[in-house]
């Protein structure tokens, strides 16, 4: 199978901003977790002109891991997540796109699981869910089902595997910013009837840098839900 294709099957798009400490570890873990799976991959680093030297580190890593595996596609400034994905997708050779964070909150060990699940039923999207299965999550799902009926337990998650054309379509339709954008993509995916599989993942809060979780996130999330509830058709 690898002999038939030119280029990798899976393109991992990694948006980065000031990740000079996390990036090497992230790439090392991707290599370690994908090495023996037989799945061919590439990593496209979309760096938004990080002042901390992330791009220099990336170049060292390209020397080490190879230009076929790691590709650096920088941008002129901090331009936002949605456009980072679009930018990365321009260069992606795979038929599947994996989106994840470079800050080690997403562990690459779940990528092979996502790939395996996708192959099982040819899912359009695989999403990593941070909410454990069972127990109090029932209440969480009920609330989401009650308000939004997305059928996906982790709307704001950003660790996902998409078929390339599906992702392109969802990005072109979604207008929100920040991680409400992630919610909107998943919500629209459900509305389109795309098939979505879930892989439970563990989420370790930022090692180097400020935490993402807090009251601000809960408020933004609530606002995002209301926006989706009233406007997305």
């Amino acid at each position, binding site marked *: 199978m690898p002999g038939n294709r030119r280029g990798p099957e899976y393109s991992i798009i990694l948006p980065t901003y000031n990740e000079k400490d996390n990036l*090497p570890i992230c790439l090392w873990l991707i290599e370690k977790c994908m090495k023996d799976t037989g799945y061919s991959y590439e990593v496209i680093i979309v760096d938004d002109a990080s002042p901390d030297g992330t791009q220099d580190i990336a170049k060292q890593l390209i020397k080490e891991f190879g230009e076929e595996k790691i590709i650096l596609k920088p941008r002129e400034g901090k331009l936002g997540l949605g456009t980072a994905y679009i930018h990365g997708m321009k260069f992606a050779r795979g038929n599947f796109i994996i989106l994840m964070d470079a800050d080690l909150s997403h*562990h690459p060990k779940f990528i092979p699981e996502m790939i395996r699940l996708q192959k099982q039923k040819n899912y359009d999207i695989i999403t990593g869910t941070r*909410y454990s299965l069972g*127990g*109090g999550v029932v*209440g969480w799902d009920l609330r989401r089902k009650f308000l*939004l009926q997305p059928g996906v337990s982790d709307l704001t998650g950003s660790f996902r595997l998409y078929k390339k054309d599906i992702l392109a379509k969802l990005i072109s339709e979604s207008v929100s910013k920040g991680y409400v954008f992630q919610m909107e993509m998943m919500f629209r995916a459900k509305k389109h009837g795309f098939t979505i599989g879930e892989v439970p993942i563990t989420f370790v*809060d930022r090692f180097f840098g400020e935490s993402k979780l807090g009251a601000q996130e809960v408020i933004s999330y609530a606002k995002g839900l209301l926006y989706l509830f009233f406007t997305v058709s």
Partner: protein
Amino acid sequence: MATQFQIYLTKITPILFVWIVTYFSGIPHSFEIFIATPIVLIGLLGIYAVYSVIAGVLRFRNCEEAKVELIREIDEARADFKRRNVKLD
């Protein structure tokens, strides 16, 4: 395709209709209960929503074991890079 809000209206409107008809139907009941019931129901819904947000955040999978494993892997990665002479500052 409709927004969720519109879908909601199509479900809520008949219930509202039944509710109002009941009020005028002559079945004995008090005005206070008529007004209070929807408010109480919405209040309960609000409490449930807040509860489930909090419960969801608490059950967030932020496992200690994952953190420990990650720390170990970070050390392993750094040692490996050193061995391979990769300059990471």
